[in-house]
């Protein structure tokens, strides 16, 4: 079952990682690896992996690398922001621009500063322990961040986490652990991309803890190489009177899976998970989200729209869970998609699991094609078919983008779509 380079070659692989001689790091890695061996990769019958066959995880034959690439290409998303720059999953200090009113510590800082408690805390959450890929991420722990946004901090610019891939046939793991204290307001943007047609495996884990009365926008642009594997796990916890807005634009990758689990643990919260996908070639895109309402008086919205062209496959699995006693929760979920080719496939699985009796929950899903009448109308005014299709796709996706609350960032994403 685990007869795989990531497992069999583990001992050799970690030798090439930084901090191999640090006792604590070695221990953290080793424990996580043991737990991973015990749990194994996600199982074929795991409902969460129903449409993305986990087989690829066992077949990947990549190695970790200590090579640091000098090549860097600016992200497609043009925004005025602080930068945390990674190349092939390795943090590049000299290219980064760090805000001074936020505590940002790279793993190197934590390890060299001997901040062992913090290091243990961020690598040992229940969430990490419950997920095989998060365990694997910890077993290969090397790069990442601890970010702490102190009470009542209003950040004037977004923090842009830029992850550019340049080297072929490598496996890398990145971990972000972000704490947002009471009353803070922050915009986080992530870009994962490559301009080369190379294969690599990006396994990223993000944990975000949002305290009370905070506002967090968390947007992501994914345009990995068309031969790359991108598996990202996001875990978000939201406390009372806070709002969290997540947006993902999913474009690239051979297999790209984004799983987001949101635990709502306080009242009067607002959670929005938005996503759009534009797939071409042979991309397999999996968006899996789960919102767990543990407390009453909250609202959550999921809106996902996308188009699948050529021989692509798009998956949306969205679940809203409402615990017993979590009354007055409204949870709405919508997935709309268009098939642009006979060979494309879209799988959609909206789910509600509700144990409270005074809630307002809805879900809906549709799969369609571009409207012939609309296409005819545009072409009958002289617009060529390709542009007409593009205009209709953009218009279709706009329904998601217009829900984004940061207007400047929204514009940046819109320009990326238009440039396509």
């Amino acid at each position, binding site marked *: 079952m685990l007869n795989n380079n990531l497992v069999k070659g583990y001992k050799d692989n970690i030798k090439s990682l930084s901090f191999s001689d640090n006792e604590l790091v070695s221990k953290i890695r080793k424990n996580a690896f043991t737990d991973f061996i015990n749990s194994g990769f996600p199982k074929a019958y795991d409902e969460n992996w129903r449409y993305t066959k986990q087989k690829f995880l066992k077949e990947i034959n990549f190695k970790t690398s200590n090579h640091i690439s000098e090549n860097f290409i600016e992200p497609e998303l043009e925004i005025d922001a602080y930068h945390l720059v990674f190349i092939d999953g390795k943090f590049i200090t000299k290219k980064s621009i760090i805000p001074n009113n936020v505590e940002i510590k790279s793993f190197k800082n934590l390890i060299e500063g001997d901040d062992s408690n913090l290091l243990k805390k961020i690598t040992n959450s229940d969430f990490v322990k419950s997920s095989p890929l998060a365990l694997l991420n910890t077993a290969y722990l090397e790069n990442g961040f601890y970010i702490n946004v102190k009470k009542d901090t209003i950040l004037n610019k977004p923090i842009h986490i830029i992850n550019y891939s340049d080297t072929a046939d490598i496996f890398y793991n990145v971990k972000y652990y972000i704490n947002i204290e009471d009353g803070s307001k922050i915009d986080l943007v992530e870009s994962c991309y490559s301009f080369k047609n190379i294969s690599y495996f990006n396994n990223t884990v993000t944990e975000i803890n949002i305290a009370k009365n905070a506002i967090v926008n968390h947007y992501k642009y994914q345009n990995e190489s068309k031969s790359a594997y991108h598996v990202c796990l996001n875990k978000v916890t939201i406390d009372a009177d806070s709002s969290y807005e997540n947006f993902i634009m999913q474009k690239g990758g051979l297999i790209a899976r984004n799983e987001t689990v949101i635990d709502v643990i306080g009242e009067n919260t607002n959670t929005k998970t938005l996503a759009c996908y534009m797939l071409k070639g042979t991309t397999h895109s999996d968006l899996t989200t789960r919102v767990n309402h543990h407390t009453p008086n909250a609202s959550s919205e999921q809106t996902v729209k996308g188009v699948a062209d050529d021989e692509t496959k798009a998956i949306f699995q969205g679940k809203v869970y409402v615990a017993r006693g979590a009354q007055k929760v409204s949870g709405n979920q919508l997935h709309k998609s268009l098939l642009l080719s006979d060979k494309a496939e879209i799988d959609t699985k909206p789910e509600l699991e509700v144990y409270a009796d005074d809630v307002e929950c809805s879900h809906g899903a549709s799969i369609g094609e571009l409207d012939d009448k*609309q296409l005819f*109308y545009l*072409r*009958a*005014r*002289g617009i060529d*078919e390709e542009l007409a299709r593009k*205009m209709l796709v953009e*218009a279709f996706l706009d329904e998601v983008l217009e829900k984004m609350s940061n207007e400047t960032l929204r514009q940046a994403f819109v320009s990326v779509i238009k440039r396509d």
Partner: protein
Amino acid sequence: MSVLLEIDNLHARVDNKEILKGFSLTINEGETHAIMGPNGAGKSTLSYVLAGREGYEITSGTVKFKGKNLLSMSIEERAREGVFLAMQYPVEIPGVATSTFLKHSLNSIRKHQGLEELDTMNFIKVLKQKASELGINQDMIKRPINVGFSGGEKKRVETLQMSILEPSFAILDEADSGLDIDALKVVAGGVNKLRNDKRSMLVITHYQRLLNYIVPDFVHVFADGKIVKSGNKDLALELEEKGYGEFIGNKY
């Protein structure tokens, strides 16, 4: 006077049902022709076949436009050559602003004609001026195409498109449907303004009323897939008085 459009013995079918059964019509530059016929005669099929919409099978006959084979052109090529179909039911397209759409449209046509494409500033200038002539306010142009427009507004915007794109041949398919008398006058006024000795029009309607406002040079009675009688504008009045039965038998 030179020939603009020449339809000869056109046969077309939809889902194996023959709709056009030997339709012939020649339109010279600068002429306005009206086609009148009962519902189900094939009037909309004719307009879609000319505009190139998919789903219609041409089984025989020819259509020449400015001497070229119209039937072999794609939808957008026809539009760029100067064919404009003002639709009976203009389509709503959420998410696409009317002004963006019209800019793409005009520039596609200008490019084809070897003219310089207009930049946004110059385009907006043209658009604003033409819109105000038709009593269309700026808000409407910014809104998505036809979304939430009343019947009258939709037809006005179709007329606006025509006045911006300046086609050599315009087909007005039931231009009066859904219009009250005031809106009808505005639309007809806009259309009449565009009439000149080069531009030709084909007005398709089943009521004579529209032809009081857009007075045609020729009127044709269309029934069972072809023209059964042709005449001048008085034929429309005669039709209104006697009904279609008089001309095409009691079948209708």
